[in-house]
């Protein structure tokens, strides 16, 4: 019998009522009295010397309030980078200045050069067209390997070259790893591209800056996944506004997928301009601007090699990756190809020796940063592709090869610095074999052949790391932020609760799932609990939502704060019941004295806390409000096994996904329906990457896929009915909920399954195809068959 509330119940998403009935409050719904609008004049060349920006004519046009250029921002800081990576020889990464508005040079198509603030957006746009730009175009560097050869044009003249860092991990393992390759019975190698993506949340980015002259207070409304982090980065590093004079509000946000983690120029601009212009300044991104100013994702070029002994045991793994940073370092860009990628290269396997080299490269393209999965999809894709290729080369069953090399004992310390606390990879693979009906595959393949189609089956495993932590460790690794989360639980006199969380919901259903946790702990109805997030004036502190960390870290903070509430409430109850505190039990929203029928209701205790007439004032303070900060002791490690069955039309190369199954281990689960939805969304994005999405530049740095006419998003009819299971549960051992996180798994685990399946289909027709780079668009698949 399914529960109808609390932990484990598929409670309906309470926030969906407002989203689905059009009464949500998104940033663009917010308009301030007297607001002006800003239009950004953006570079249409990828690389050029900015000789002059003449705003004389434009400034005199109707409605123009003020025009800003790079010169106006010389006195403020550049956009900060939140992670410093140290290279393999101890050298600190090259970190260029990232101005709010371009000065001296433009470095990618879409970089803002000037900002026109006017009464209306159309007036701002009219005036922007009258700005005269004098730009001397320079050769653009687009290809990463070409960018790091000697004498390549430099993206940043003041840096030594275009190499941001050259990272080796674990450097101490390198010699032993190289030797293992010399000793190997078999080596499988593969060169591949992890295609550049554009996140494309449904809601484009928006920023509205306000300034109160009377109190010298700034307010920024912005589409952010972590408003407190924006407050810190923008206040402390860019504009020099102390946090107590700066409020950042991120109300309903329509999807983030990572791209709304970062601090963007438009946010700093609107905050700065609101004070300079003495009126609120608003910017709403157009979809075209989003394509050329939202941080992009992925974009790795990798060579991976797997060494095996004569018994097909993995003995060593070696990778060589070029990771595109774009023209500037976005907020967390350096961490993605390193600490979120190299640390996951063990995957689900007990490979004893691993060495990862990553060269991060500056190019004249939009900055690249975390996108759903961030580093972990890149790790999973190359590993699961090379394992599949090895199985083919050795003529062994790809599932058997994986099982043979699975990690089976936990905790397991990988050779890439992380320790998996728990897992059961055979269990998820067993579940997958059941869901995938592999015994029926040959019959399905024959049926496909009868209709002229090639059928293929692809399987893969994945492991990921969520809830990046602990703060003291990530600090050593170069993070310039803590990675805890905070929660404040405020109980009102009449018994209702407000939970203020530093996690931010932009579609994940936190308002529902978080309420379930607190309701379970106290034994009250979920409707008595309100979840508040996304406003630095309401929530004391927060690190935000990314990396599938919200339930594992934010949820744990909430548990800790609620425990404090319960402890204090028990003290009050023991006073009211004239019993010893140690005898008080909380069950179903009532406090009772163990072994008696004496009890007092939750509401009576909360009322006593605020109307303390009969209250132990000499022992405890009135009121019932507690805050907790939770800093995890380790990452969490969700893992699973996925399979994909495709049909390929051999005449056109078109791939159709016929079946897809996902067996995930997320540890304990708060709301199964929400988890299923998260997996569905992740699968859609992973399959989108595998089959459709491709952010492409030409050699001059022009963005070829700058709209939905050329950037293919997955649509419902591109996807099959998913078979999803999360009944294999090995609870996380180090957080109080035993949860692992589920937001990114689908996007991490699905691309290799799709590619493995298509390669299998083509090989079934006798085609000597070992790899096709994503997206597996019809033309690419057809070309591979020729």
């Amino acid at each position: 019998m399914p529960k109808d509330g609390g932990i484990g119940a598929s409670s309906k998403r309470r926030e969906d009522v407002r989203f689905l009935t059009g009464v949500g409050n998104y940033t663009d719904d917010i308009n301030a009295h007297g607001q002006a609008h800003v239009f950004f004049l953006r570079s249409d060349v990828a690389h050029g010397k900015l000789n002059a920006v003449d705003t004389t004519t434009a400034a005199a046009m109707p409605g123009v309030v003020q025009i800003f250029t790079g010169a106006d921002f010389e006195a403020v800081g550049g956009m900060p980078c939140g992670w410093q990576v140290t290279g393999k020889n101890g050298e600190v990464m090259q970190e260029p200045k990232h101005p709010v508005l371009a000065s001296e040079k433009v470095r990618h198509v879409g970089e803002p050069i000037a900002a026109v603030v006017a009464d209306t957006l159309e007036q701002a746009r009219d005036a922007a067209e009258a700005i005269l730009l004098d730009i001397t175009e320079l050769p653009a560097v687009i290809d990463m390997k070409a960018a790091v050869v000697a004498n390549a044009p430099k993206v940043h003249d003041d840096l030594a070259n275009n190499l941001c860092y050259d990272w080796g991990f674990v450097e101490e393992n390198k010699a032993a790893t190289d030797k293992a390759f010399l000793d190997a019975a078999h080596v499988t190698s593969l060169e591949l591209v992890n295609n550049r993506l554009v996140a494309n949340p449904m809601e484009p980015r928006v920023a509205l800056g306000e300034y109160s002259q009377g109190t010298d207070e700034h307010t920024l409304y912005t589409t952010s996944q972590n408003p407190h982090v924006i407050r810190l980065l923008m206040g402390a590093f860019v504009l020099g506004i102390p946090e107590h004079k700066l409020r950042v509000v991120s109300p309903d946000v329509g999807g983030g997928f990572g791209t709304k983690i970062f601090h963007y120029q438009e946010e700093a601009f609107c905050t700065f301009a609101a004070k300079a212009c003495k009126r609120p300044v608003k910017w709403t991104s157009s979809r075209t601007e989003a394509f050329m100013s939202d941080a992009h994702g992925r974009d790795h070029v990798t060579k991976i090699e797997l060494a095996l002994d004569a018994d097909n045991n993995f003995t060593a793994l070696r990778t060589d990756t070029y990771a595109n940073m774009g023209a500037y370092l976005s907020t967390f860009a350096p961490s993605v190809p390193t600490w979120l990628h190299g640390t996951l290269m063990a995957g689900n396997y007990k490979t004893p020796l691993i060495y990862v080299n990553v060269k991060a490269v500056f190019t004249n393209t939009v900055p690249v940063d975390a996108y759903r999965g961030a580093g972990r999809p890149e790790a999973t894709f190359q590993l699961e592709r090379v394992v599949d290729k090895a199985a083919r080369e050795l003529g062994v069953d790809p599932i058997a090869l994986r099982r043979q090399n699975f990690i089976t004992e936990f905790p397991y310390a990988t050779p890439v610095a992380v320790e998996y606390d728990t897992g059961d990879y055979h269990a998820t693979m067993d579940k997958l074999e059941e869901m995938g009906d592999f015994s029926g595959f040959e019959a399905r393949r024959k049926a496909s052949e009868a209709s002229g189609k090639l059928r293929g089956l692809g399987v893969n495993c994945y492991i990921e790391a969520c809830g990046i932590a602990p703060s003291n460790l990530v600090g050593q690794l170069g993070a310039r932020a803590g990675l805890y989360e905070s929660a404040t639980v405020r109980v009102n006199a009449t018994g209702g609760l407000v939970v203020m969380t530093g996690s931010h919901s932009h579609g994940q259903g936190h308002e529902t799932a978080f309420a379930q946790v607190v309701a379970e702990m106290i034994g009250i109805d979920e409707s008595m609990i309100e979840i508040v997030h996304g406003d630095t004036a309401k929530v004391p502190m927060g690190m935000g939502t990314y990396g599938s960390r919200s339930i594992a870290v934010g949820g744990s903070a909430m548990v800790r704060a609620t425990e404090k509430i319960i402890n204090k409430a028990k003290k009050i109850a023991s006073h009211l019941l004239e019993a010893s505190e140690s005898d008080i039990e909380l069950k179903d929203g009532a406090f009772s004295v163990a072994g008696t029928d004496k009890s007092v209701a939750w509401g009576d205790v909360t009322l006593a806390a605020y109307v303390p007439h009969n209250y132990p004032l000499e022992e405890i303070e009135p009121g019932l409000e507690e805050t907790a900060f939770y800093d995890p002791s380790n990452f969490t490690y969700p893992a699973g096994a996925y399979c994909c069955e495709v049909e390929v039309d051999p005449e056109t190369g078109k791939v159709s996904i016929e079946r897809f199954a996902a067996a995930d281990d997320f540890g304990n689960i708060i709301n199964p329906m929400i988890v299923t939805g998260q997996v569905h969304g992740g699968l859609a994005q992973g399959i989108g990457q595998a089959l459709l999405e491709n952010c492409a530049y030409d050699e001059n740095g022009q963005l070829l896929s700058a709209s939905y006419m050329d950037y293919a998003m997955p649509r419902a009819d591109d996807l099959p009915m998913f078979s999803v299971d999360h009944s294999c549960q090995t609870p996380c051992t180090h957080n109080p909920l035993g949860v692992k996180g589920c937001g990114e798994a689908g996007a991490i685990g699905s691309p290799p399954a799709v590619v493995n399946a298509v390669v299998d289909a083509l090989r079934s027709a006798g085609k000597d195809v070992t790899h096709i780079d994503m997206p597996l668009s019809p033309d690419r698949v057809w070309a591979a068959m020729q």
Partner: protein
Amino acid sequence: MYNFEFQKPDTISDAVAALGAEDAQALGGGQTLLPTMKQRLASPKVLVSLKGIAELQGLCMGDDGSMCIGGATNHATVAVEATSYPALAATAAHIGDPAVRNRGTIGGSLANNDPSACYPAAALASGATIVSNSREILADDFFQGMFTTALEEGEIITEVRFPIPEKANYQKFLQPASRFALVGVFVAKFADGVRVAITGASNDGVFRWGEAEETLSTNFSPDALQGLSLSDSDMIADLHGTAAYRAHLCSVMTKRAVMAAN
């Protein structure tokens, strides 16, 4: 979008007069023109909507048995009402999405002559006659290359007359992002021969594949196409397909259209 004047005449002659103004532009369903204007890539001074002209709306059967479609008739209407020409109705039913089909018009599509649009293939393969406010133009003379037609400045498509073939079919291979035709082939078999028109593939816009027509006119079967192929020299090459891929798809889609028509 820049400012413009908007006019919505209710007769063809008023529309023609309005289009005589400087930088005036006819507006059908606006499915191409309006996004272009929003991006400030087009800046007509006067927009003359053809939607208010009753005689440009709707379908009827001509005395010669052809299907006549008013120039401002939207795709959704053709999809439902062109029952005498099922292949044409099916073509209209798969243009764009419901919003596009309820706004976009046949006259607008033909006048724009997007190299990836569906209707040009249907009109050319059917040997349609494009009727304007001043003359009648055979489809073979109408399409003159990518975004180029025989229409003069200010000339309005008032009607399109489709002879109804014995058999016909349109096969569209979708460009994955836009879902326009990466290659679309319309095959129409008449008593006096077969016509094959291809959209999406060529740098010159919609074109007829003479060799396939000749072969199919003697043997209207997919097997007859065996060994026939188009040169890739004038084919479009872009992010979604090489010239060679498009040339290959022309053969595949033609074969499938013949198979479906039979």
